[in-house]
């Protein structure tokens, strides 16, 4: 709620002060820019609601889309190449879930380590120079990164469709209820007969699969995959969006709406600062302050209690 108010305030301020902010064109540009972040955040939200964390999401999407590009360049039909990448991403996610639930390793370290492993293997075997370009002749695929009718960016539509799907999954299906129960109290969930181990694998598989969709949008926008994205701050931006929107790291709380609001706040902020052509240092200062205010307001409105607080939160 606080975040939504903050967001509305920012939009109002920018609309008045920044000529050219409140126009269809710019709002579409803004929407285009946050679509990928938003899609990734949807996947992350699933894991976080189930009281987990997936630091390997970006690495896994980078690796699997890079392989999809290589297959496409080698002449494999686009849908087939994308499907191979999709399965690969899911495999990485399920493997994370297996290590976390069956081997019982902590999610933070497991996914941190697996992201390094995935990236290393990809680099030594397939993408030695870190950047892989999509060859000429995939114009149909690149339309995914373009605009549809009325100038609306296609990535935005992908984001909205994904948001609707994840919303339905979380709020209308048994699996969704299970994920909330799992995050709210894993022990109680297990004792009441929920298959928590397979459930964990499904959660991480979903995070990787949804992340992969974001990755596909990414390559359709740039026609290349630069593996370095896995080592950028993107993964932290994703977590930031999720937490900012109100998907608590303690699990069991938040929904797709929270992700949308969190994404919007970051998007508006970045867009406004780019229009003002601010230098990086100022951008970082403002980003930090806005985040602190938003989180501060949130913990004032929703005080931590014994049930929800945890070490490091």
């Amino acid at each position, binding site marked *: 709620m606080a975040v939504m108010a903050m967001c509305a305030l920012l939009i109002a301020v920018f609309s008045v002060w920044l000529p050219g902010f409140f126009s269809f064109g710019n709002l579409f540009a803004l929407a285009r820019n946050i679509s990928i972040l938003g899609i990734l955040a949807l996947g992350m939200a699933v894991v976080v609601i189930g009281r987990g964390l997936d630091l390997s999401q970006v690495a896994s999407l980078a690796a699997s889309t890079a392989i999809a590009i290589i297959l496409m360049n080698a002449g494999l039909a686009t849908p087939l190449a994308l499907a191979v990448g999709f399965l690969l991403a899911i495999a990485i996610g399920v493997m994370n879930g297996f290590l976390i639930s069956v081997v019982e390793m902590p999610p933070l370290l497991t996914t941190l380590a697996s992201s390094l492993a995935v990236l290393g293997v990809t680099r030594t075997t397939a993408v030695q120079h*870190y950047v892989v370009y999509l060859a000429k002749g995939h114009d149909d695929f690149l339309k995914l990164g373009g605009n549809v009718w009325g100038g609306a960016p296609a990535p935005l539509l992908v984001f909205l469709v994904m948001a609707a799907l994840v919303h339905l999954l979380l709020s209308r299906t048994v699996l969704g209820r299970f994920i909330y129960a799992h995050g709210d109290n894993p022990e109680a969930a297990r004792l009441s007969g929920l298959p928590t181990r397979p459930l964990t694998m499904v959660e991480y598989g979903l995070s990787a699969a949804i992340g992969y969709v974001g990755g596909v949008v990414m390559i359709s*926008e*740039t026609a290349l995959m630069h593996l370095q994205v896995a*080592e*950028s701050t993107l993964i932290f931006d994703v977590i930031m969006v999720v937490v900012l929107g109100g998907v608590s790291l303690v699990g069991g709380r938040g929904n797709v709406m929270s992700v949308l609001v969190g994404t919007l706040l970051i998007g508006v902020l970045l867009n406004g600062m*780019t229009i003002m*052509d601010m230098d*990086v240092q100022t951008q970082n200062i403002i980003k930090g302050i806005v985040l602190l205010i938003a989180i501060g307001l949130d913990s004032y409105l929703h005080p931590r209690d014994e049930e929800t607080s945890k070490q490091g939160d």
Partner: protein
Amino acid sequence: MGMKAIVSCGLAASFLALASPAFAPAKAAEAREQLREQFDKAVKGKTVAWAPVWLGVLESEWTRVMKNHFDDYGIKLEVRDANFKSDVQLQAVSALINEHPDVLIVQNPNVTLLAKELKRAMQAGIYVVQVNMASNTLTDAYVGVDAKDLGRKLAHNIIGDCGGGKGSGEVSILEGEATAAYSLDMKNGALEVFKSDPSIKVVSSQPTSWDANKAGEITATVLQQHPNLCAILSVWGPQAAGAAQAIKAAGKAGKAKIYVASDGQPADCDLLEQGAFYRNLSYRADTQGEAIVNAVLALLQSGDKPGSKRIAYYTTPAWVNSKEDRMYCFTVPKIAK
């Protein structure tokens, strides 16, 4: 046995020389052999340590050329890939100095990170060569582009196409990492030139962290605010690919033109030929690799104390305008892939 054989050979030859005056005098042959001996003495068995920022396309090409030559001369090459992590690179360089190679080659991620270590290396008697990205500490040799001059050259070219009423005069700059000397110098060089022409307006100058997606996002926003944008100056190729897609998505293909400072990687020429880039100011990594080798050879044979000279080997860039200029992009040999 070498010398003796040569002398007796020479005696025999002088007899023969009576019969054939064209036969080379023995003394000259000796001098030539001495040159090689002197060369081998100076370089054979020496160790060269190489710490790049990471092993990307450009760096791999340098490494390939270096290895090729050094293998031939009997020089040992030790490579430490820091994979874009500055703490790892700093550690690698410190460790390399302690191993005491004869020459240390570094590519600086920014102007300060390695400054102290490079000084320490020279004090320890190691020749230091810097490649393409210079540090605040000057060392025995610098091999690479003059980034500021690249910026100036690109800016002059943009003014020619966009200034003086020929275009809107609106220019956007895509930087790399904001603190990288390479990016910073190029931007400053370009701004210096742009300021001299009142018809040019730099509407945006943002760092992309070398990321194509970020470059695409910035370009999408800038194009919204400045639909008449005439030129985008990008300090690096792969990130500009993202901007090219954003231009296409905004329906501005052919109107907003991309000018790239290219390290000559094949994809940059591909993108230019596809019309995604308008002009590349390109330098070739393979010839740069040879310049690095030459700098190392010169230092090893100089007999100078490390740290006593400051030699620069500036790379001359060339414009890539069309398919005809393909030679300014290098080709990676199949085996090296």
